[in-house]
């Protein structure tokens, strides 16, 4: 079911249930002083688009909006001529700086991954979404999300093995 249930009262509940999740999602990806502004944008869009919210998948839907807001935020921050910037890699995966990894070989391997791999891994591993929820957050099918995760995991393992062999 999509959206028709999302009256004002339901939206208030959505907000209260997930405000801190959105805050955590953002703080993994941007500096803390930008979180409030971006969260404000996310909920403003969510309010306007609330009719599109799939019942039972409110949080991944919010993450999907957050992904778009983040992508635009980073694109603007880079202040690039954006004629073809959309052909660039995605801009929603956590950066190494904001994710605060512990410096282990595994975290170094993660940082070596492409942003597409980091994106799916971050949703599943750090944000705790299921495959189905990650698919909604990314706007793709569950099957595609599963394949993406599988490939990302394989590349993570490969990077880890390479790092470990270099350190031996």
């Amino acid at each position, binding site marked *: 079911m999509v959206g028709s249930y999302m009256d004002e009262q339901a939206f*208030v509940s959505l*907000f*209260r249930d997930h*405000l*801190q999740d*959105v*805050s*955590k999602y*953002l*703080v*993994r990806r941007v500096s*803390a002083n930008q*979180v*409030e502004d971006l*969260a*404000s944008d996310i*909920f*403003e*869009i*969510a*309010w*306007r*688009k609330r009719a599109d919210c799939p019942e039972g998948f409110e949080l991944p839907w919010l993450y999907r909006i957050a992904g*778009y*807001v983040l*992508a*635009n935020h980073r694109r*603007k921050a880079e202040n*690039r*001529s*954006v*004629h*073809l910037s*959309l*052909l660039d890699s*995605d801009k929603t995966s956590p950066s190494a700086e904001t*994710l*605060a*990894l*512990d410096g*282990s070989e*595994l*975290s170094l391997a*993660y940082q070596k991954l492409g942003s*597409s791999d980091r994106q799916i*891994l971050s949703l*599943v*591993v*750090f944000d*705790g979404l*299921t*495959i189905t929820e990650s698919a909604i957050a990314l*706007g*793709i099918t569950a099957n*595609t999300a599963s*394949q*993406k995760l599988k490939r990302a*995991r394989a590349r993570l*393992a490969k990077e*880890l093995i390479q790092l470990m062999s270099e350190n031996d």
Partner: protein
Amino acid sequence: MNEKIEKDELLNKLRQSAKNPNAPILSEEILFAATKSEQRFGPRKLHTPKIILNLVGGAAVLAAVFALTLNPSQTDILKDLEPNGTSGSASIAMGNFIFTEEELLVSQKLNLAYWGQKAVGNYVSNSPETYVDNLWSGQQAYWIFVVADGVYMPNERSAEIRNMFKAENLDQFSGELTKDSTVRGIKFLIQEQGVGGALYPLVVKEAQESSFYQQVRDIMLSDTYTQIPLN
């Protein structure tokens, strides 16, 4: 996290390697601001878009990206139709395009169409309604078409495509336009230049004969395209 992931030792270790983020406590003022935000659907304004001030050489105001995704066999059709002996020019056959990201990903190739298609998804964070306000007025624009093997610009008829999106047409066919990127159809991404790169995506839904979709598609089928170097 689902059970399958929980049992994955590598992913579990990765999860443990990330420090628990100290997320700011956000106030409910965000809620009040959100629910007071107005729907931006409304009568179109006739003001000149700010972006016109950013003209470079009198050229680009808007960049439009039409993300088409092809499966491998359709890419072959495209290649077969390239004129012999020409450089950078190709006729594009658009008979059996598949417009979903899933189809493209099946090919396991992260190509330009993949990125273009992903970008279409940016619509949520913008206001397609505003895009309509800006675009219908027929300002100069580049319409760039992303297909599996490159980025193309229409040679002659981009004006015709642009004219399709003028107010009179959009009013007539408003029911055939949507912001929902999951809908099959022709997906455009309009990208402003010089004002932060705001994106204004729109999906022209697949529909019946004589539909807006068919008209846009027919114009595109009849055009020729020049490949744009990316460097």
